[in-house]
């Protein structure tokens, strides 16, 4: 009788490696999901501590975002209202996808573009100018021209930061933040107090309303405009540029290791410049579709209250800089935003003023947990995965 020796217990390292492989195969979706769940739990805790019912609050936000539209048993008036809410959620998600791409593209090159907000405004202002100051064009031409102007405006603002980084090595975090403020104050200057682009009514700090011929088509009445399709197309473009072109290869190589990229003959400085300019054009496109799609004009108070560019950072981080991830993350954050707006949320259940801040907090927590990959991965037991990753970023002064 032969005794088969028991299979040796797997080495600890092997266990770790197996888990790391599973983790990688999950496409990195694990961490964003875990982070989101954790963030909502902690957010719920805050709601509970301050004396509200978190389940009711989250349910109200869910319905305020129009997500109940997909539930088949929601019918009649309720369904019409849900459809309207969902359209608004998708409309809010549109610029978020684009500003998130602006962050993600730079991230893949090892750069942190906080300037999405400023680039968004440059695109917005440029497209608005085309819409108000150029007349007599056919609608498709006018729209395309407006979008092109928006892209150019954003690319300019991103390009300045890129140029400074490429030539003198100025850290993009500082330069893009400064460019944000210059865009915000500059924008206010343009449209108020007799500024050069102020609208016809001298008493109002407002621009003119753009021509009908420059407006994007409505694809799902009454709210959702064609900008949503533009954003989806941009996600595809992002994927193709990064994964199917030489430029994208170089950008990723630089992001992975600038030193190695330099030794293999890639122009690191050129990549920095192009990455930020292209990033800027995504954010500029966001501004263009917002103004051509539904805003049609700008009020100077908007400059202080619009945080699309900053939310885009959270979206990109949660979406792990992948096109698909950004799509879902933008819809989540858009839902948090519309679901907590005063029009959608019943103040009896949860005050909208609180809810808006709650959603900001949830965003912050999501970023913390996504950023602290280490925390979640070590819970998962795949710490070695982190050890084997090379240190990829070489940073100048901050």
């Amino acid at each position, binding site marked *: 009788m032969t005794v088969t020796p028991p299979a040796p217990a797997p080495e600890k390292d092997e266990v770790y490696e197996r888990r790391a492989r599973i983790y990688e195969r999950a496409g990195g979706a694990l961490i964003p999901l875990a982070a989101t769940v954790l963030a909502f739990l902690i957010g719920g805790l805050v709601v509970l501590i301050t004396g509200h019912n978190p389940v009711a609050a989250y349910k109200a936000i869910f319905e305020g975002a129009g997500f109940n539209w997909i539930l088949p048993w929601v019918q009649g008036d309720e369904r019409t209202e849900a459809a309207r809410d969902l359209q608004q959620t998708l409309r809010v998600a549109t610029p978020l996808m684009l500003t998130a791409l602006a962050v993600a593209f730079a991230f893949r090159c090892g750069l942190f573009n906080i300037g999405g907000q400023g680039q968004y405004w440059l695109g917005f202002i440029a497209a608005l100018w085309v819409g108000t100051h150029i007349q007599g064009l056919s609608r498709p031409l006018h729209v395309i021209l407006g979008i092109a102007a928006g892209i150019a405006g954003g690319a300019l603002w991103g390009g300045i930061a890129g140029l400074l980084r490429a030539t003198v090595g100025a850290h993009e975090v500082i330069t893009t933040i400064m460019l944000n403020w210059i865009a915000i104050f500059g924008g206010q200057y343009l449209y108020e107090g007799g*500024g050069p682009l102020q609208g016809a009514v001298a008493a109002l700090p407002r621009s003119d309303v753009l021509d009908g011929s420059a407006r994007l088509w409505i694809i799902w009445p009454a709210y959702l405009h064609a900008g949503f399709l533009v954003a989806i197309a941009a996600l595809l473009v992002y994927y193709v540029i990064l994964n199917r072109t030489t430029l994208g290869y170089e950008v990723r190589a630089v992001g992975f290791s600038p030193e190695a990229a330099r030794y293999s003959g890639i122009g690191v400085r050129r990549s920095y410049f192009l990455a930020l300019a292209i990033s800027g054009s995504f954010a500029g496109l966001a501004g263009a579709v917002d103004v051509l799609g539904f805003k049609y004009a700008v009020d100077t108070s908007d400059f202080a209250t619009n945080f699309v560019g900053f939310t885009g950072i959270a979206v990109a981080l949660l979406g792990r800089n992948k096109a698909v991830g950004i799509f879902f993350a933008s819809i989540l954050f858009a839902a948090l935003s519309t679901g907590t707006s005063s029009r959608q949320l019943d103040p009896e259940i949860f005050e909208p003023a*609180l809810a808006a801040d709650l959603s900001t*907090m949830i965003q912050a927590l999501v970023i913390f947990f996504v950023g602290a990959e280490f925390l979640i991965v070590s819970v998962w037991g795949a710490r070695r995965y982190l050890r084997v990753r090379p240190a990829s970023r070489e940073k100048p002064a901050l």
Partner: protein
Amino acid sequence: MEAALSRAQELSGPRALAVAGIAVGALTLWLALPPWTIRSIAMPFALGIIAAAFGIGALARGDRAAGVWALVAAFLGATGALWAQGVQAETLDDIFTAGLIASTLRFATPLAFAAMGGIFSERSGVVNIGLEGMMLVGAFFAVWGSIWSGSWIVGLMMAMLFGGLLALVHGIFSIHLQADQIVSGFAVNLLALGLTGYLFSSIYPGGIPTADVSRVPKLELPFLEDVPAVGDFLFGVLGDLSLLVWLMFAVVILSYFVLFKTPIGLRIRSVGEHPRAADTVGISVYGVRYAAVVVSGILAALGGAFLSIGFTGTFSENMTSGRGFIALAAVIFGKWRPGWAFVATLLFGFGFALAIPLQREADVSENLISTVPYILTLIAVAGVIGRSIPPAAIGRPYIKQ
């Protein structure tokens, strides 16, 4: 003899030329302002060209950075002087007063607190773009503590406590959990924005009861008026400043002293330059970094507290509006040195202080003037001031072996 020769060489060297250019540029503007108020178109052009010539001289002799600064000074001095000549002399008198300097100090105070905090954190190797959020938390809890207890001292304590706690969160994520420090700092800002907004709306639904806010008192120094000749001016600048402004002066001096003249400072700096070496000689890298980050949160929160209970006496959502980032720029501008960073905050403070009277008296768009500090920062980080070299290990988590 030789010494005199080398001295002469030094005086005609590029750096000296550039300094002369900057001085002439500044003089150009100054002559157009009270008490001189020279009115002549030739003056700014002539002096501006002289200043620019000095700058080009410096450039030609190889001191690129200083030369460019001289050119900037020449341009700003000449345009500023030309602009000032277009404005009536009395208006200028109303703008350039002792009050303007006092106001500069007031605007610089929150920036300086936060910048000192930033220096501690970054010198230890932890990037802190969360300064903004820490200031905001400080501003809110200062008001909360001061209303709750009726005492501004408790308000300051609360600000420091919660600023420190928020910094601790940043520390845990960026030191122990090895998160990207910029991402963690960004999250700190967002968390502070949401948290203070949430607490503000739920605790004070009707707005802050400003009458109940105990404000930091002002330190009146009436004896300054008795100083001969410059008494009025001295009193106007220093005679009626908040206690926190004086505390800020103390913090700046103390920061310099601690960082560069004590063993503690040496440890902080060594951890930021070469953590492995510091670890080898028995310095606790994590310990020093945690301490430095928490100190940065406490200082930033004091800056925020100045905004709320020191200056406005109230709190509003997102009231720091980017000041934390400007403080960060001041840190870089000042090359991670307390003294120079303080000078940078004065510059930014002056930019803010000038916006108010310029708009009131001379009808210059407030928005346009508001962009000036940011443009200056852009120029500064673009390396015109000469390259800022950060602590070597900044931004990199330390992994123990």
